[in-house]
């Protein structure tokens, strides 16, 4: 037996191992079943998961035999794998966020242009359209709901101690001092997940320096060593003595539960976060006030209100099939209707509808107040990790903010660190 034969034998053997994989790769091809719409979901928490199931069931009922197959992935894992997901074999429709984080993938050519659908969409404000539009001026995103970030607290606790919602930072600190005297931990604080504390940074920044500065800072156009950024951290440091200690060891769920158990007085979070930690009977006790004013020039103009919604994944094999594409678009059209949002919100009253035609009569008091807050806002920001590059937010800002929370004294060193890393990341494109 010659060496060549031996190699040939080995090659055949290797082929026998690889062949089945190749065959399965070929067999599915473009197509799939147009009656089945695959939908990638990041709603792994119980309340929204159930509410989405209700909404999809309602769609199936009126769709004439179409079925939605939901692939739910843990919220954080979905986020971390989104790049891989969109490139390999994504579901036809998937849930994601508006703003920069959507534009980033639109720019990479991973999203399907739905400008044609947008021509028929009704009930969305120009601001919503702007947040659904990519850098090339085309629409990629169907907004579904949003929710404001604010300072949440329990009505009953405020009533019991006679607290008033503070308007300015000084009043906020005075209130915190009073809470301390009343044996409450004044301000809830959690950042084990890495993102919740970003909301506090955003608000202090927008109240101190305004929305435009926030936008350009997030776009990498301002230096993090700027005095204005250091002011933000300095103000935050003034609040730290009133915050729950050891934020880095606590998840947002645990802080939500502390609020529910009346251990903390108030907390800066998004509306669904405390909402999901309260038993249904106690939800009417949740209240909020907008983050207090710091610089009168900017007042309380800006509201942080991230928008979630649905997109079509361009690399999805099924979308190469015309009929499947029709089904997917039909689903998006339905999801953009006010009725679709009403059904969802009936199951998850911790968000508010984006469509102006949605039925406000069933809103809870908290939802009504949220809708007013957003309607009255001069500017709407998304969230730090939705307003800047994802790689910057996750590899630089998460560790930086956690470091600030555990060792808040070296602001200069921290800002230098951020700025140096920001330069290399933003230069990479």
């Amino acid at each position, binding site marked *: 037996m010659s060496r060549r*034969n031996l190699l040939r*034998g080995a090659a055949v053997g290797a082929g026998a191992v690889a062949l089945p994989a190749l065959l399965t790769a070929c067999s599915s091809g473009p197509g799939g079943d147009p009656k089945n719409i695959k939908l990638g979901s990041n709603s792994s928490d119980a309340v929204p998961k159930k509410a989405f199931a209700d909404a999809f069931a309602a769609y199936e009922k009126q769709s004439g035999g179409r079925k939605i197959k939901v692939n739910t992935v843990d919220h954080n894992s979905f986020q971390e*794998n989104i790049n891989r997901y969109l490139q390999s074999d994504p579901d036809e429709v998937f849930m994601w966020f508006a703003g920069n984080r959507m534009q980033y993938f639109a720019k990479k050519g991973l999203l399907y242009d739905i400008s044609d659908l947008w021509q028929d969409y009704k009930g969305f404000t120009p601001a919503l359209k702007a947040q659904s539009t990519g850098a090339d001026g085309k629409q990629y995103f169907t907004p579904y709901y949003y929710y404001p970030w604010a300072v949440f607290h329990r009505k009953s606790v405020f009533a019991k101690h006679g607290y008033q919602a503070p308007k300015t930072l000084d009043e906020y600190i005075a209130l915190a001092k009073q809470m301390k005297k009343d044996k409450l931990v004044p301000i809830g604080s959690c950042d*084990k997940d*890495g993102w919740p504390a970003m909301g506090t940074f955003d608000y202090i920044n927008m109240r101190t320096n305004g929305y435009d500065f926030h936008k350009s800072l997030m776009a990498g156009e301002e230096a993090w060593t700027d005095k204005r950024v250091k002011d933000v951290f300095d103000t935050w440091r003034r609040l730290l003595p009133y915050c729950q200690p*050891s934020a880095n060891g606590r998840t947002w769920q645990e802080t939500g539960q502390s609020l529910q158990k009346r251990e903390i007085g108030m907390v800066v979070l998004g509306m669904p976060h405390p909402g999901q930690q309260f038993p249904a009977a106690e939800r009417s006790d949740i209240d909020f006030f907008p983050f207090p004013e710091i610089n009168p020039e900017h007042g309380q103009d800006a509201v942080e209100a991230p928008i979630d919604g649905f997109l079509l994944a361009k690399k999805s094999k099924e979308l190469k099939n015309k009929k499947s594409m029709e089904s997917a678009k039909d689903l998006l059209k339905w999801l953009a209707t006010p009725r679709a949002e009403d059904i969802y919100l009936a199951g998850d009253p911790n968000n508010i509808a984006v469509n102006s035609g949605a039925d406000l009569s069933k809103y809870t008091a908290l939802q009504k107040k949220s809708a007013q807050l957003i309607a009255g806002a001069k500017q709407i920001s998304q969230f730090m990790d939705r307003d800047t590059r994802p790689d910057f937010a996750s590899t630089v800002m998460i*560790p930086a903010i956690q470091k600030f929370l555990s060792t808040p004294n070296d602001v200069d060193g921290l800002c230098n660190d951020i700025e140096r890393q920001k330069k*290399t990341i933003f230069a990479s494109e």
Partner: protein
Amino acid sequence: MALNTARRSARRGRRRFTRRDLVVLGLLLGIPVLLDIAIVWGPTLASVVLSFTSWDGVGAIKWVGTQNYANLFTNYPPFWPAVRHNLLWLGFLGLVSVPFGLLLAVLIDRGVRFSRFYQSTLYMPVVLSLAVVGFIAQLVFSRDQGVLNALIGNTKNPTDWLGDPKLNIWMILLAAAWRHTGYVMILYLAGLKAVDPSLKEAAAIDGASEAQTFFRVVFPTLRPVNVIVGVITVIESLRAFDIVYAVNHGRNGLEVLSVLVTDNIIGEASRIGFGSAIAVVLLAVSMGFVVTYLVQEIRGEKSR
């Protein structure tokens, strides 16, 4: 029969293997080698090459030379803590967990009462994945709702075992060692069962004390087990990942190299070039251990 053919062909001096031997050899050796090249060395080389580029996983690959490495060593705050933590991990498992596992193995081997019970209890964590150990660690060490703070009555001003960057690495090391000790114990237990009892008897007749018998007679015969334990300890420490990832994604005091690699490569926007550079550093560190080990083994073979 096979022996016969081999001898006959050897006498002929030309072919040492029959055709069938060659086919079997080719299949059994060739396929693994090809697979090894395809799924181990291919990606390894690809990582090395990618570490000199900048790539976001979608767009064009851009050549940037050693910039990633310069950036890594001077401008990436989590990097040096991660290196330190990996080495600490190695030191802790090697110097605390391994000796402790050996001690337990010796105790159980001597037949303390309920030794079966101890054996299975101590081995139990080994069947759990490290991610599960991570979740259990959170139940125990969580600041507000953990068992430990409740047990020590530390509710007024609780210790933040997992959130305090000065403390959390030690808590995680404890959790990792909890699992590793059982693993080490089982390996040593198997080794101890294989020690010829007559050796111990001989030592006892010669008047050796218990300690002397162990260190001079029994321990040297455990050399093969020591090697295995050494190897798995190095592997466990360098690939440390799941447990810290389950606890807080390897941030805030729990940085390890493998997490930094995934943070950069798997994340929402990938910095694949930069992540590869970290992976190459991890590869270099592992190679350091592997090469030292191989050199020692080969020298040992020769001297024996």
